[in-house]
């Protein structure tokens, strides 16, 4: 282990500079910038029990109640009741708060008194993305959502309703706006969604895996929003446990990261390799004897000169324990 501080990284200065910058932003910019017209705040979640759900909400002249809302917004009220948000027995749902629709949309009296004036109520589809997320995170602040703030999607100005729909979801679960999870992710991540269609792929198109099998789109403590672990390899070996080791003989790029050699979204090469062997192996192994030999067309079309280092699994024809060996003679991953 090498100490973070001792190794020369200016962590203290960096943290100090960031702290000063933050103070400057709060004190300086905040006071100088006119605030955008603020939407009414979300109603506080009172966490009433199911037994109290029919009781009147806390007295407030600003709230009108679900019945008034659904007078005009009947379809939204109906759809909400079919989802988990509408299950009043769960004391954490809007339906249990007593404020129902106004839990998310804010007090509705001004909106009603204004004959439906949209500027007097929170319309999430018209709000700034981070305002939308703040509304949802009022309740969805646990489990898989704890890392949303500051995560990659938050930082790129996406909000919860970029992917989810509260009133008209099309997916069979988790209330997505698109019919499927892959379709949702593919709306931005086209390259990855296309790669899963290649010859060598995970069983995604076969319906055995989805994007969230590996990723948590709400943010995570791992890289690339991987759901499990805190480093790339931990996510991979959560299914491929046989390769986690530690082995008696380790292959350095395996320890460094599975994606050194594999593209988990798919490729045209056997085993989802990022390039064909032996060329892939020759990217690092440029030494004497057989690794740096040119394995050319003669080797695959001419039996007398055929080379077992290009046909079949190429280098892995012999170095089959390439992920690590527990054999005392396995230093070259041959046993």
């Amino acid at each position, binding site marked *: *282990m090498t100490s*973070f501080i001792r*190794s020369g*990284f200016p*962590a203290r200065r960096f943290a100090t500079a960031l702290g000063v910058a933050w103070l400057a*932003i709060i004190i300086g*910019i*905040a006071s100088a910038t006119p605030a955008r017209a603020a939407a009414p705040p979300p109603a*506080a979640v009172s966490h009433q029990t*199911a037994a109290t759900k029919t009781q009147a909400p806390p007295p407030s002249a600003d709230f009108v109640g679900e019945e008034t809302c659904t007078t005009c917004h009947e379809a939204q009220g*109906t*759809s909400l009741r*079919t989802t988990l948000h509408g299950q009043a027995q*769960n004391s954490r749902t809007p339906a249990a708060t007593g404020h129902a629709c106004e839990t998310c949309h804010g007090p509705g009296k001004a909106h009603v008194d204004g004959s439906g004036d949209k500027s007097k109520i929170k319309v999430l589809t018209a709000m700034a*993305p*981070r305002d*939308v997320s*703040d509304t949802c995170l009022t309740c969805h602040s646990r489990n898989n959502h704890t890392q949303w703030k500051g995560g990659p999607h*938050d*930082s*790129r*100005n996406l909000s919860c309703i*970029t992917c989810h729909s509260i009133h*008209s979801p*099309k997916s069979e*679960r988790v209330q997505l706006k698109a019919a*499927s999870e892959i*379709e949702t992710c593919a709306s931005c991540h086209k390259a990855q969604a*296309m790669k899963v269609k*290649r010859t060598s792929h995970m069983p995604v198109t*076969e*319906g*055995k895996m989805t994007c969230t099998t590996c990723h948590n789109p709400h943010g995570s*403590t791992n890289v690339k929003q991987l759901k499990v672990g*805190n480093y790339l390899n931990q996510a991979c070996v959560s*299914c491929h446990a*046989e390769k*986690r080791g*530690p*082995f008696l003989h380790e292959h350095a790029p395996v320890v460094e*990261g599975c994606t050194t050699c594999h593209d988990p979204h798919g490729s*045209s090469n056997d085993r989802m390799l990022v390039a*064909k*062997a032996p060329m892939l192996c020759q*990217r*690092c192994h440029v*030494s004497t004897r057989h690794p740096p030999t040119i394995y050319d067309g*003669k080797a*695959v079309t001419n*039996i007398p000169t055929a080379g077992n280092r290009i*046909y*079949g*699994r190429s280098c*892995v024809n012999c170095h*089959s324990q390439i992920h690590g*060996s*527990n*054999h*005392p*003679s396995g230093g070259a991953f041959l046993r």
Partner: protein
Amino acid sequence: MRNRLFAMVAALLLVSGGAKAQSTSDSRQQDVPKASAAAPSISDIAFENEIDFGVRGTSFGSNADKARFERYRDLRNGGTLDRLRFSTRTDQYVFNAQADHVGYRDQRYSASYNNYGRVKMSFEWNQIPLFYSETAAWLYTDQGNGALKITNPAVQTGIQSGTLKVVNANAFLGSPFDLRQRRDTATFNLTAAVAKNADLKVSFASAHKDGQMPWGASFGFSAANEIAAPFDHRTNDLGASFEWANEKGMARIGYDGSWFSNSIQTLTFDSPYKATDSTNPIAYVFGNGTSQGRMAMWPDSTANTVSGAAGYNLPGRSRLNGAFSFGDLRQNAALLPFTINTAIAPIPLDRATADAEARITNLNVNFVSRPTDIVWFNVRARRYDYDNRTPVFQIPQYVRLDQVLEPGNAATFISYTRNYVDADVSLTPLPYTAFKAGYGMQKVDRTERYFASTNEQTLRASVDSTGFQYGSVRLAYEHSKRTGSGFDPAILSDAGEHVDMNHYDIGDRDRNRITASATLTPISQFSVFASAATGRDDYNGIYFGLQKWDTNTYSVGFDATPIETVGFGLTYSYEDQNTAQRSRTANPGPQFLDATRDWSDNASEKVHYIVASMDLTKAIPRTDIRFALDWNKSNGDYVYSLPANTTLPTPTQLPTLLNELTRASVDFKYFVTKHLAAGFVYWYEDYKVDDFALGQQYVYGNRTLPEGVMLGYFQRPYRANTGWFRLSYLW
């Protein structure tokens, strides 16, 4: 077949009684044509419960690769109970039960129960097959427990005595067999709301994987010997956590344990080339060495992790999150002797068991703040420490390929510490538009690598216009520079490598990436989108190894729903990547420093994709029709080049690689009554492949070669036509 029928009948019996509800919870999306492909909004679903059964059959073109057609699916001909959905709910709870592909090797069953606000439970049984080949053949008989014996001893004695050439051993290959494996996973999850703001979560998963896989079991540098390695292992994972959260913050503690156990830890296999053990300095030439090989397969291992996380909302719309975890990986399998070859005197082991252990410590801290409506910033720090504590294993001598005694090197172990600090500032002065700039620094310290440390600094900027009615526009640029320090040439030279080479996983690198995407929705019935991404990795200043890696992807397409009952869309994508690498064909001595023996290899791949679909949902009375097309084609080239002053012979270029897959389907469904639908699915698949390494048309297709015996797991084309009559009952 009997098992399939039994499972289908059992599933049918489980369906008793009806229930009224709204939503199903099938978490999977499939390319297998489904009875109802067009997903209505949840409020439009009239029935939640469904049972779908029918008869399916597939015809193949000549010499089709049936295993590759199936791959992760079991698509045998016969009766199907393809989909079962059952749900019942009250104001207090919802219960769901599902079954897919009942009785087939890719079957899945699940059940979930959610007592709102109190307890959630789910269970799933999921089988994932992997079909490699139905034409594999070999010389062996699997005697169980990882012991593979050559069926006919005449092979070994004949080759050893010189009366049989390896290339003629094909007469001794056994009958073709299905080369396949399967992963069966059972998962159970429980979340209980034990208090107003507190949840207790418990999860357990058990994954069993068995079958055979293509495996190299070589006896010499020029002697490939491919076998179907049997394996049978299980991983049990247990997780438990307690989480408390309210509107101010959250805290969580957790434990995760994982136990991997392998029933076949040793693979023993006869040599086709020798019937008796011997050794000599040229024993790598088959016919000169061992009669058996022995390999250590994956050892049992355990992983235990305790973790904690907390988050707290601060003034100024700020939040501080922290997470830590501490875990260890242990593996202490008994070590095999250095060789199974009885002609070589036993070599004492440094220790009897692996005694391998790695400790993993992780700490994350994240501070995010939005002090004003237009200013957002985030600072993240992460430290990940992988500390491999396995004692050095002394290897004064070892036996290569069970054939020849060689001088050895001690086994040492890689540890690393990753420190990462990252900061982003995002400004939203315009409605819906965020301008972001960020900086990240990752410093990694490693042992046993030629750079003791690498430092990567990243600058990034992006503009994102999102959340508005007419679509989104996004643009991002990222530049990073990775430099190594503490160069230790001995790490390379001790392994016989050139010291001026690059290991691209840690080597010096400049990376530039630009991504752009736009989605425009001028009217709600129509949207058009385009995206582009281009990137380059430059491994500067390094003579050998990977020099550069370029990637480009482009996509355009549209989706249209002109009327409620008609929807269609089209996407075209293009992707290419190009790499360059340099090497030197050389043996020890003068050749090692002879630049006239250099060569380069430029690899390129171009991939085209088309995805199209059309949904007609009751556009014709009582009828749903879905057309779908999925096509992709990849061409790859590896082109060798030599410098002008080369002393190497001119190489023969490799054939161009081809992978082309076409999938088209029509899913027709006619509602005889409100509850009963009859349908027909037609599915066409055509796969073309030309792979110089794995193609049957090249030398590999001969299975038995002058210097090797291969299994026969080829990359072969196929053409398949699948028809499927289905009846769906909905209630």
